């Protein structure tokens, strides 16, 4: 029988994959993909817990996470466009004028 833990472990693994993406990626666009993975990992955990507790709150949370993800994409892409216009690149290694 698939229990809550199965889903949670899956969620954890996906989260770890997302984290790997975030720390590994240098291209900002692809980095954003990785953050989406992390949010989705949490969504699975919410949906699973919601299912096993027979409680709708988890689905609510997942719903709002999706909304947030969408908004973030909008703002994030807006920022990337500005950035791309000025710098002509999305590589974050080129984005280190402020340090120290």
């Amino acid at each position: 029988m698939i229990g809550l833990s199965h889903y949670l472990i899956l969620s954890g693994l996906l989260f770890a994959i997302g984290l790997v993406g975030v720390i590994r990626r240098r291209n900002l666009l692809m980095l954003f993909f990785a953050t989406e993975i992390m949010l989705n990992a949490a969504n699975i955990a919410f949906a699973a817990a919601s299912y096993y507790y027979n409680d709708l709150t988890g689905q609510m949370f997942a719903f709002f996470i999706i909304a947030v993800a969408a908004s973030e994409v909008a703002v994030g892409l807006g920022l990337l466009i500005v950035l791309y216009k000025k710098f002509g690149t999305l590589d974050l290694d080129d984005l280190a004028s402020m340090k120290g």
Partner: protein
Amino acid sequence: MLEPISVSLASLNLVTLAPMLIAISGGLIILIIDLFKDGLHKSLYVMMTILVLFVDFGSVMGLNVNERGFFDVMLIDGVAIISQLLILAASILFIPLALTSKRFHEYSYPEFFALFLFMIAGFQFMVASDNLILIFVGIETASLALYTLIALHNRNNSYEAAVKYFTMGALAAGFFVMGSAIIYALTGSIELYQVADVLQDRINEPAVMGTILGGSIFLLAAFAFKLSLFPFHTWTPDVYEGASAPLAGYMSIVPKIAVFVVAMRIFGMYIDLGVEWVRILILILAVLTMTLSNMMALVQQDVKRMLAYSSISHAGFVMAALALDTTKGNTGIFLYYGLFMFTNLGAFAMLWISRHKNRIFHERYDHPYEKFAGLVKIMPMGAVVMGLFMLSLAGVPPFSIFWGKIYIMSAAVDAGYIWLAIVMGLNSAIAAFYYLKLIVYMFLYDPVQNDNTVYYNASRPLMTIIGIAVAATVGSVFFMQPLISYIFYMVSASGY
């Protein structure tokens, strides 16, 4: 089939929503005005924003303590009220800094002011709820607006700052939702009072201890990012440097107040439950933050960056108070930020006044120390005022932050954490060095010869704001009593 639900309007307690609604509608009105007429002067929007915030402030003042509204999603306790008041007060004080004599990009957008108000609404939602969903949505609303405001300064540094902030913020959001998911998986609830109840039962199951801690740590990481605690603080100096000075000053206060409220709600719960490791971790983070950021601030060449590190350090200081989880400690948080607000406002406003369009004194920095060399000879009052702010930041009595410092240190002592109080004291001493460095530059060095005046960007509204900041910084002792008693009352009424 579902039964139709009848909800009485009274039970919704809509008044709890009033403050946020005011802010939102203010933002909408600005958008609408812009729709009808282009090219209105920024002063109009500044004043409108102030008015909206003023009304908002009034409506918050009118709230009753310890009420819930809207299916218990809204929680108006004392902490929520105080934090909203502080947020609004800070906002009212910061927004006039838009009225510079020189033009800067962001203020040419009416949307700037709308976003500003939406951001405030986001913060207000955040603090006025113990529902993790609303907290999350509030945080994100505010953050998204804030990222945009930073980027609107429209120069290379500000994009870089916005992108850095945004990306790290996205990661932190990931941490937050993961932490919430764990909490939900453990308790079947995302409302903190419920969570606390359930955890109270489950805390004795040794098997889930790791899970409980794990959840708290994801949340801690998320909040540590927002509060800029080590090692999640790395965005702070860069973002402050990239953002305009008023916004940097604003960021060092308002988001932190909001996040502190949430952190207080969440970690206060954990500590109350007896999860001692949360307290220990917070203390470790706080001490590391104070010390390391102080050390980094020592070696900065730019005043704004130095102030960025200093605000990290102050956040660490306050975070330590949070770990105490006593009424006095929590009172200290608000008191500290209430006082820090004025001084930091003043300091950043002084930087803003001295901001040039292009960097004259240093190829990278807007505000290198050299810029302020011999200020006392160029503009004595300016130097004295800036000196006052620096002394206050350093915790020299009787200026405002000193009172916050002793209150928090006293709270630490009361809670039995004398070592913590000593660490705080020693850190203040380290910090004094870099504040002094600026004073030394201003008072003891000779001016670097330069044709441009330092006060390039000064205007009467800015001067007024600085005047207010000076008055509050110097005269703090006279309003300490009402401030402490009010905050203490509010915090203890909320049960923290």
